């Protein structure tokens, strides 16, 4: 692994970045993420419909939904924290998106690295949790308690995967990892087991079937979203598109070599997000404890074996 580390370190030492250089990136990256995220949601719904032998929504359906939600005449707020919760939930993902390198835009990614990124990713959850908390609706609180439990469930295998990858590349810099993969070999070929475990956690991270117990519409009335109306719900829709995007880009950066050009990049991230979508409609929903159990069993086991190969 010494050759790797030398390689990574010699090439990707970033110097000081000036704000002017990165400002366009800071504006563009969330936009790209938003658009791709919307497309992913569309893909998600389309695939679901196809699997259920339906036609599915029209192409602009995600846009319609979001515009409609933001265009609501009346919307309720349960207080300042309710508002701030949504702001933080969206804003946290915006920050996370900026910290994720994409082709041609990696100026700021090195300021954090993968560990920082995975903790920045907790900020929206916490913000949302606070906002939901203020709604004073127990369904929301139950949903949050389940969501945090789910986070506990999938973050443990995820963090093992992150560790394995970082150990493999001898770096926590995402830019360094991507460049290494582009010049050598994709991570998925070098670390197939970790990649498999990563895919597993990706499923949990997206919060869709079969790990969407925290939403559970018929049981706890969509959990955290129960009191979300209008722009609050719209914020959550925006957040969800970011969520899809971040999860897929992260996976693509860790295992699929990121993207050297836009076409390749988009192909990869849509491919990545496709897999969990296909899986999600094949399984019924897991209960919370079952989700914890399955997440702590298989992906953890696979990832640990993967680490043993990497180290």
């Amino acid at each position, binding site marked *: 692994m010494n050759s790797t580390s030398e390689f990574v370190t010699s090439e990707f030492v970033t110097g000081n970045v000036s704000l002017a250089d990165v400002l366009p990136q800071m504006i563009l990256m969330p936009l790209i993420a938003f658009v791709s995220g919307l497309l992913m949601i569309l893909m998600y719904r389309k695939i679901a419909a196809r699997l259920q032998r339906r036609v599915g929504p029209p192409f602009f359906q995600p846009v319609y939904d979001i515009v409609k939600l933001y265009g609501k005449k009346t919307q309720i707020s349960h207080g300042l924290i309710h508002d701030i919760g949504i702001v933080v939930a969206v804003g946290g993902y915006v920050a996370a998106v900026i910290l994720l390198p994409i082709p041609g835009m990696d100026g700021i990614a090195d300021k954090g690295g993968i560990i920082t990124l995975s903790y920045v990713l*907790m900020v929206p959850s916490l913000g949302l949790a606070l906002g939901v908390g203020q709604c004073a609706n127990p369904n929301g609180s139950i949903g949050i*308690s389940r969501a945090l439990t789910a986070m506990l469930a999938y973050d443990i295998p995820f963090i093992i995967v992150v560790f394995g990858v970082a150990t493999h590349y001898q770096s926590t810099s995402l830019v360094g990892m991507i460049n290494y993969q582009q010049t050598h070999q994709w991570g998925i070929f070098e670390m197939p087991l970790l990649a498999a475990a990563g895919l597993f956690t990706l499923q949990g991270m997206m919060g869709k079937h079969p790990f969407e117990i925290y939403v559970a519409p018929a049981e706890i009335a969509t959990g955290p979203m129960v009191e979300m109306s209008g722009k609050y719900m719209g914020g959550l829709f925006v957040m969800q598109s970011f969520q899809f995007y971040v999860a897929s880009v992260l996976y693509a950066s860790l295992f699929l070599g990121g993207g050297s050009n836009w076409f390749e990049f988009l192909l990869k991230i849509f491919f990545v997000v496709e897999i969990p979508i296909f899986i999600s409609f094949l399984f019924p929903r897991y209960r*919370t404890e079952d989700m914890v159990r399955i997440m702590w069993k298989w992906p953890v086991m696979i990832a640990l074996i993967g680490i043993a190969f990497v180290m």
Partner: protein
Amino acid sequence: MTVLDDLLLFTALASVAIIALRRFASISKFSVVVYALATVLLIKMSALGYGGEPVYSSFTVNVLGQILQWRFDALSWFFALITLVSALLAAFFMSGAWGEKYCKEHSKEAYGLLQVALILNVLSMLVLLASGDLLSLFIGWELVSWASFMMMALNPDKLARKAAIKYIVYAMAGAMAFLMAIAMTYNMTGSLDYVQVMQGMAHLSNSQIALLVSLYVMGFGIKMGVIPFHLWQAAAYAETPGAGAVFMGAISARMGLYALLVVIVQIIGLTRVAAIEIPYTFLDMQNVLAWVGALTTIIPTYIALKQNDARHLLAWHGVGQGGYMLLGVMISDSIGTAGGIMHVFNHATYQAALFMTVTAVIYRTGTSNFSKLGGLVTQMPLTFMVMVVSIIGLAGIPPMNGFVSKWLIYRALLLDGQPLLFVAAVIGTLGTILSVYKLVHNTFLGQLRLEHQEVREAPLSMLIPMLGLAIIIFATGVMPGVVLDWVAAAQIAVGIAPVEHNLGGIELVQGGLDMIWVTGIMFYGFAVGAIIFYVLGGKSKHIHQYDNYAGGHFLTSKVRYHYSNHFYAGLMHMIGGWYRNVFIKLEHALVSLVSFMSQFSENFYRSSQPVMLVAVVVVLALYFVLGSSGGAEVSAGVSLGGFNQ
């Protein structure tokens, strides 16, 4: 007279003054002034924090062939800074409305005693931090233990008394292990002076070092509350009267880490510790200690998750965070130890702030029981804000300071190639996130209770220290370089390569951290989010908490529509069975064993024939005598009538 002399003398005189004046009403103002002046004296030594030469006290004692001396180096200065600032804030916190209420609820005398306990704690900690040899370290150690005990014992509740007793028994066990270790060190190296012991350690065998390390670690570990000695701390700290708990939670248990840094890291050296192989395993002593740290992050954190009282929850987290410090120090490279040492500072800031917020809640509502709180955010928004800032710090999420120290620890674990420890640390963090959300949700969020509708924000005297701490938490989170300067100096003092840092964090070729950028991006993100929310979305209406979706049910004030019981029911369904109270059972088993042996001994003393014992001892002694010398001499020895010989 050096500055250190001034500081110690000043604090000692101040404690005498506070003991004398404890019944006066102005004692609270006086004590604030005292801590402020002491802090000023400490700042006069601030050169230490940037790599200055150690300051020696001119006062020494020569006793039993030992020269006791006192001195301050960068590490002591760092810890002393935390101590004095938290004492200052705690004193300020209790100087106003809280103190008046405490006087009313208990008595003026009790309040005076709380002030006395605080100054004695500070004094004893300064003495401990200033210690220049192992014996003075032990003296300081015991003083700290007893000062803490005094603080804990001030709460007259039954639970608190029990906790205090438990504490002092544990503390005594730790002190005794420490004393044994000191005695052994003295016999092995012939001295107790740091420098000479350090030289003497070089000649010791690995097994000797192993014995010493395990005794020292047991002594210090009990104070830190590491597994398996973690049972005493949470109850004891939680039941300490509010302002006292602020101070204790912030710094008291960290004295264990200070001693550990001095003795294990500086004197013995982690390379020696790492050289000790544990037989029949592939671990060495350092790994074992790191694992102790890792388990300490996990187990108490998940015990905290089950608590139903805010103070207990926080106190358990205090135990758990100690594990991070130990883990960080035990990684033994410059980044890891920097993380461990820095975490002391960070932990002190947010833990003090959290205890203050909880105390403020108790001050206003009279309880910290989660089942009796909720929805206070509208009534106490500033307190809530401070709590949110601090729990973000505690959970180790950017941009607060707790993240930086944890990042350093994770980074060091990554560089060191320790996957399992890394995972353990992360499990601890995740558990922390879960339980801090429980804390903030069950006190401040959710439905406001009818009886709390008239609750007001905490008074200004309590808010000022809280807000100050919140600012510190955020500022040192954004600019960790400020603290890392001191940490680097402390690292040099204990003989570890200092961490390379800048104002924003760590520069590391293999992926560094720049908190200024990270925070900037985060706030940029929040700004974008706010624009999306406030500009694109329409007007919203603020509604009553009873206007809430309940499946078509009509909510009134009679219905408690709030979720706080069994908060993580799903998770507990899964891991609930893993809480087997193993350590509590072990503790009980130990007590039962002592009880059994005690009954056995008592029966011995109750024998009805007094002469029986004499006969028994004579027979046994003679048996021992015969056994020890062999029978051959008996016949030779028995030659009676010896006068003529």
